[in-house]
C-alpha cells in the first residue's frame, strides 16, 4: 500500500515536472527568440527558419550609428531623462502623502484617504484625453516636460503600500523624538525615512520603470514629433509598415537594450517588494 502510494506520487510528480518544463519553454522561448535574432547577421526583416545561421553585433552598432531617420540613442536618452525626473517627483509625492496619512492626525484625514483610494481605482486611461487638451492649452504638448508631468502628477494616489509600511513603524519612536523637542518635519527626515529603505527603494524603482514601459500616454502627447519619442513608441515605429523591412533587426536589438536593464531593475525591485509588502501587510 505504502509502496503504491509512493509510486503514485513519483508518477504525478514526473507529470508535473514535464508540464512545468513544457510551459517554461513556451513562456521563455519568445524571449530567447528575441535575443537570438537580435544578433542575426543575415537576411532582412524575416527569415524562413527559427535559429539564425550567423551572428554579429551589426544590429546593435547600426542602432547607434545609423541615426538619420530613426534616432534610437536620442529616444533612449529622452526616456532616461524623463524617467529620472518623474522618479524624483513621484517618489517625493508618494512618500509625503503616505507619511501624512500614516503618522499625522488631522481633521478629515479619513475623508482624504477614502477619496484618494477611490480616485486611485479609476482607470487612468480615462483622463488622458483631457490631459492632452490641458497640455495643449498650456503649450506643452509634444515636449518632454509634459511627459514628466503626466507620469508624476497622479503619483500621490499610489500611497497605500508605503502607508502600510509606515504604519508598522512603532509610534513610540515619534513620541520619544517629540519629547526630545523634534518637530514633525525633523521626525520625517531623520527618523522615518532612514528606517524605510525597502519602501523607498521600491517606490523609486517602480516610478523609474514606469516611463520605460508606458506607451499610450507618450503616443498621445508626442504625436508625430519623432525627436521627443521615448523608446516605447520609437520601437513601435520601427515595426510599422513603413520601416519594418529595413529596421526589424534593429527593433530586436533595441528591444533587448530596453528589456535587459528593466528586467534587472524589476528583479531587484521584487526583493524589496516582498519585504515592503510583508512588512506593510502586518497592520493592513
Amino acid at each position, binding site marked *: 500500500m505504502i509502496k503504491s502510494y509512493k509510486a503514485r*506520487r513519483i508518477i504525478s*510528480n514526473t507529470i*508535473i*515536472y514535464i508540464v*512545468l518544463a513544457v*510551459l*517554461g519553454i*513556451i*513562456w*521563455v522561448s*519568445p*524571449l530567447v*527568440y*528575441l535575443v537570438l535574432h537580435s544578433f542575426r547577421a543575415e537576411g532582412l526583416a*524575416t527569415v524562413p*527558419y527559427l535559429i539564425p545561421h550567423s551572428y554579429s553585433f551589426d544590429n546593435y552598432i547600426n542602432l547607434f550609428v545609423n541615426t538619420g531617420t530613426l534616432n534610437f540613442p536620442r529616444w533612449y536618452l529622452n526616456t532616461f531623462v524623463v524617467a529620472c525626473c518623474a522618479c524624483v517627483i513621484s517618489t517625493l*509625492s508618494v512618500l*509625503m*502623502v503616505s507619511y*501624512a496619512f500614516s503618522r*499625522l492626525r488631522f481633521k478629515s*484625514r479619513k475623508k*482624504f484617504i477614502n477619496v484618494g483610494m*477611490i*480616485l486611485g*481605482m*479609476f482607470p487612468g486611461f*480615462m*483622463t488622458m*484625453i*483631457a490631459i*492632452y*487638451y*490641458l497640455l495643449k*492649452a498650456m503649450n506643452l504638448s509634444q515636449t518632454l516636460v509634459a511627459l514628466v508631468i*503626466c507620469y508624476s*502628477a*497622479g503619483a*500621490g*494616489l499610489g500611497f497605500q503600500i508605503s502607508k502600510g509600511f509606515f504604519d508598522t513603524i512603532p509610534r513610540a519612536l515619534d513620541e520619544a523624538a517629540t519629547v526630545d523637542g523634534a*518637530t*514633525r*518635519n*525633523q521626525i520625517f527626515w531623520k527618523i522615518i525615512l532612514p528606517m524605510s529603505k525597502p519602501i523607498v527603494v521600491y517606490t523609486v524603482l517602480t516610478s523609474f520603470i514606469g516611463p520605460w*514601459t508606458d*506607451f*499610450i500616454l507618450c*503616443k*498621445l502627447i508626442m504625436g508625430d514629433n519623432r525627436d521627443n519619442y521615448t523608446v*516605447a513608441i520609437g*520601437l*513601435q515605429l520601427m*515595426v510599422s509598415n513603413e520601416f519594418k523591412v529595413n529596421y526589424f533587426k534593429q527593433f*530586436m536589438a533595441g*528591444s533587448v537594450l*530596453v*528589456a535587459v536593464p*528593466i528586467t534587472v531593475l*524589476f528583479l531587484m525591485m521584487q526583493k524589496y517588494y516582498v519585504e515592503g509588502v510583508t512588512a506593510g501587510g502586518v497592520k*493592513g
Partner: protein
Amino acid sequence: MKYIDYKQLNPFQKFAYNFTEFFKKLPGRVAAFFKAIGRFFVKLFTGIGKGVANYVTRFIKGDFAVKLSYLIFGFGNFAKGQIIKGLLFLATEVAYIYFMITFGWPNLSKFNTLGTVETQLVDDGPFKKTVFGDNSMLILLYSVVTIAVTFVVLFIYITNTKSAYKLQQLKSEGKHIMTFKEETKDFLDGKFHVTMLSLPVTLIAIFTIMPLIFMILIAFTNYNKSHMPPGTLFTWVGFENFSQLVNVTTGGKRGVTFIELTQWTIIWAIFATFTNYILGMIVALMINKKGIKLKSLWRTLFVITIAVPQFVSLLLMNQMLQVNGAINILLSDITGQEVAIQFLNTNALMARITVIIINCWVGIPYTILSASGILMNIPADLYESARIDGAGPVKQFTKITLPYMLFVTAPSLITQFVGNINNFNVIYLLTGGGPSTERFYQAGYTDILVTWLFKLTMNQQDYDLAAAIGILVFIVCATLSLITFNMSKSMKDEEAFS
C-alpha cells in the same frame, strides 16, 4: 449562528459556513453600497448647510473687524496685529478680482454658448485675411479653470472669516496671538500635514480631477472634426452623443459599432480574467506542490516575462504571429508541410481567440506571483481531512483550493476585470484592433471600447464621441471599483477562515 457555535465547528465546517455566508451577504453588500452613496449625499448637503449656518453666526457674533473681513479679506487679521497674514489674504482678493476681470469673466460669460463669433476670411486688399473669432475649446477649458480657481478662493475666503473670528475670541480671552514667524514654523510641526499634502494634492487636482471635469463636459458638445476650433465653433448638444451610441436608428454605424464592441469587450474581459486566473492558479499549485524541487527556478521562468516591458513582448508576438512569422515556421517544421495561418489579419473569430490565448501568456505570471503567497496560507488540515474522507486531487482543487482562493481574491478578481476592460496594451499592440471591417465606424473586430476611443481621438478627432464612450466606460468601471472597495472594507472586519 452565535460566536460560540461558530468556534465549535471544525475547520471544514467553518470554511463552508464562511463561504456560503459570503455569497449570501453579497446582494446586501451591493445594496449597502448604493445606500452609502445616498448617505454620502445627505452628509454632503447637511455639511454645506452647517457651514452656511456657521458662516452667518460668525458674522452676527463678530465685532466690527470680523464683519468687515467678510468684505475685505484679512481685515480681521490687520485689526489684531497679524499684518503679514492679513496682507496675504488681501493679496488673494486683489489677485482674484484682477484674474476675474482680465481672464475669468470674459471666458465664463461665454460658457453657455461656447462662443458666437465665427472665424472668417475677410477681404484685405488683394488678399484674404483670417480674422479669428471665438475659440470654443479654449473658452470651455478656461471656464473650467476659472470655476476651479473660484472654489479655491472661496475656501480661502471662508478660512479668512474663520481666522478673523478666532482672533477675536483669543483676544477676548486674553490669549497669545501667534506672530507670522510662529505660524510658518507651525507648518513644519503642528500643521505639517498641510505642507506634506499641498503639492501632491495640487498636482492631482490639476492633472486628474480637472481633466475629468473637462472630459465630462466635452461629451455634451459637438467637438469633432467638422467643428474644430479655431476654424469653426462647437456648442452644447445635450445627450446627442450618447443617443448616437446607444440607439442604432439615430446613430447608424456608430450605434452598431458601440453595441458590438461592448459585447466583445465584456466577452474579452470575462475570458481574459478567468483564463488567467484559473490557469495561473493551476500552474501555481503545481509549482507549490509538496515534493516539487527547484521551485524558485520555475517561478523565475514565469516571472521574467513580467519584467520584460509589455510593449516589447507584445510587438514581438505580433511579428511572430504574422503569416511568415515564427509560429507558422514552427508549425511548418513540425508538420513537414507549408503552414500559413492568418492569426490576426483576416478571420475575426481566429483573431479574437488568438488575442485571448496570447493574453494568457501575458497574464498568467501575474497570477502565479500573487497566488503563491495565498496558496501557502491555506490551512493544511483542510486538505488532510479531505484526504481522509477520500477526496482526490481534482476534488481537493474544486472543493477547497478554488473556493478558498475565490473567497480571498474576489475583490482582486473584480479589479482585474476592470483592468481588462481597460486593457489597452494587449489589444492595441497585438492586433491594432484588426481585422478591420466596413461594418464598424473606425474600428476592427478585436477593438475593445478603450482602443476604439483612442483611435477616435488620435485618427479621427471625434473628441465628442470619444468622451461619451469614456464616460460610459468610466461609469461601469467606477461602480465595479466602488463595490470592490466596499467589499474589501467589510471583509477586513470579518474573521475570515480562522
